[in-house]
């Protein structure tokens, strides 16, 4: 009898634990209802757009700085080469 009561108690406990999972099961959908806007949970996430905006700005600044520095270096090298050539030719 005591063993039976313990087994019954365990079954009841298991059933009570499992009850919420039964309760959480979605209801059967019997029709499709159109809506104009997506539910909140389904809407587009903002984070990728925000991160993209910041990455675009910072990467553009970096690329532009590199581009100006490279152009300055190129012109400076050419100036130095020309000045050296002029010195050699005795015109500096």
């Amino acid at each position: 009898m005591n063993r039976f009561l313990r087994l019954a108690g365990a079954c009841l406990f298991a059933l009570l634990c499992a009850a919420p999972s039964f309760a959480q099961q979605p209801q059967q959908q019997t029709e499709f209802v159109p809506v104009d806007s997506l539910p909140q949970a389904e809407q587009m996430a903002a984070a990728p757009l925000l991160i993209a905006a910041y990455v675009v700005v910072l990467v553009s600044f970096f690329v532009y700085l590199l581009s100006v520095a490279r152009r300055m270096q190129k012109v400076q090298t050419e100036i130095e080469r020309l000045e050296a050539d002029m010195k050699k030719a005795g015109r500096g």
Partner: protein
Amino acid sequence: MPRWFTPVAMVCGLMFAISPLIIANAPYEREMGLVQKIYYYHMPSAWCFLLSAIVCGVASARYLAKGDPRHDRLAIAAAELTVLFGLLTLITGPLWARKAWGTWWVWDARVTSSFVGWMIAWSYIILRRYGGPGSDKLAAGLALFGMANVPFIYISVNYWRTIHPPTTVVGSLKVSMGAPLWFCVAAFVLLYILLIKMRTRLEEQRARLDSLYLNLDD
């Protein structure tokens, strides 16, 4: 480069490094939520875009009036930066709009006039590059139209129907949102000053190179 350049560059780099932390701590906007934080980079980009168009126009006007090549060099530098900051404005804006308005682009007065201003800056650069002799004066005239477009861009949101927020939104910001915004504006303006100095220096070097070639030819 002048003596102030390196310390200012260090301050500017530091400001850009900590700006994401300051922006992350700023509050969310009630209607738009997280995506509104694009504003902290979008608006300073837009202001530098307009500032650069004005610098280009004023330098061009002075070049047309006095013929001083230093003004022409400044105008070239400013035109290139107008393209850069205009591009950033026209990229960050749609990224914000996609979430906030549900569309990438609207042909309202603000967006359209900004796009026109950006195209004028591009026209200036293309004209200088491929226009041949005399293109400096033609481009300077074009820069005046680019500058004339600036007030139109600025006030367009107050006079034409648009979903863009009006100019008064900046003044109405709470300190928690205003402080990060003005911090970013300061960082962008500092960067603008550094970039225009670098770009003008490049034009000076090119002018020096041209004079060396002329000396060599004589």
